[in-house]
């Protein structure tokens, strides 16, 4: 624990873990490029996950990604097409991508869905992650069904 804090202070990112502790964000452990363990221990619901991916106030994944959801118009082109992503990536890889994509690519436009943002956040959203821990698990459950 102290090792982690000291190293964290040296590299100047300790602030992230301490802030996580005081919000609705669940703690997690990153191993290589993955978060191997479920955030909640409760299996995700793919039906809910699909709805959350479309919902503009929740995941709003369609804003940036094409997905095999033909009933929705105007899929985004900012990120890669998610059809077949369940064959390309494991649930553990998807989990880090959703929780904090900046751990993989600090320059990415993709929001960190389970991390509290700090700069000039509108009052209504202050101290909150974009998606709750179970919502992340639901979306993982859905997109890992998207096989090629």
């Amino acid at each position, binding site marked *: 624990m102290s090792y982690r804090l000291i190293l964290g202070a040296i*590299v100047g990112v300790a602030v992230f873990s301490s802030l996580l502790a005081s919000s609705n964000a669940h703690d997690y452990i990153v191993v290589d490029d993955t978060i191997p363990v479920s955030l909640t221990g409760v299996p995700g619901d793919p039906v809910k996950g699909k709805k959350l991916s479309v919902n503009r106030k929740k995941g709003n994944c369609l804003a940036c990604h094409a997905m095999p959801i033909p009933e929705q118009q*105007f899929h*985004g082109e900012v990120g890669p097409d998610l059809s077949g992503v369940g064959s390309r990536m494991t649930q553990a890889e998807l989990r880090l991508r959703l929780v904090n994509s900046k751990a993989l690519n600090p*320059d990415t436009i993709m929001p960190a869905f389970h991390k509290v943002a700090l*700069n000039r956040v509108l009052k209504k959203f202050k101290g*909150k992650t974009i998606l709750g821990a179970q919502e992340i698990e639901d979306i993982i459950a859905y997109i890992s069904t998207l096989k090629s």
Partner: protein
Amino acid sequence: MNFINNITRVTSLLGIASLLLAYTTNVSHSGSNPNPQGVNKMKSGYHWATAPTREMQDDDFSNPAFLWVDIGSEQWTTKDGEAGKSCASCHSGVETMKGVAATYPKYSAEDGKLRAVQHQINNCRTQQMKAKPWKWESDNMLGVAALVKNQSKGMPIKVKVTGEAQPFYNKGKKSYMLRRGGLDMSCKNCHMDYTDTRIRANILSNGLGNGFPTYRLKWQKIGSLHRRFRGCNKNVRATPFKSGSDVYTNLELFLTAHAMGMEIETPSVRN
């Protein structure tokens, strides 16, 4: 496992360092040309507007923004304030404003900071006319700002970013790159990194101000560039700044410098 976690963090810090390097090489502007990539790479929002929207803009009679330009013309000759003057008392016909807006935002020695056209209008009102300043988003302010900018329609943008303007340009640039809000996104993320890309129903433009004030179909009225900034801030769940604030005026100079040489289109029509 913690060890591995820390390795991940160190790796991402290396990433951040190289990112900062990338910013300075890609976006650093030198000398008097802040747009070394060339104007032709930057396009007006008109380029991405739908055909019916363009048609509406192209014809002054169907362009609804001219309702406000007319309000502006009326205000131009309306006396107000204790000095009993109108704009026309000092400037005569509005055609004397030809080319003026192409140089704004502009450093003011009197204020020690930048003035947008709207600040200059209010300065004339309070100092010369002894009249009350107008609210940024009022019909009168939008009208006179659109009227003044319309006198430079078709002329190339020519703002100064060196000398006394430079620190404000630099602040604007920094602000453009800064991530904000619950979605933690910067202007750059959308308007530089993903120009020409569909984000749900919208196609991202270069996010320039050459057509403002613009009639936005979504607003059902004309609105200022700073109103647009507020909207983009709120879309990423960030607390917006005030219209006319230093932050937005510096940002306006940065955007305008990006469109250096591009024709002014005011008043434009956008979705």
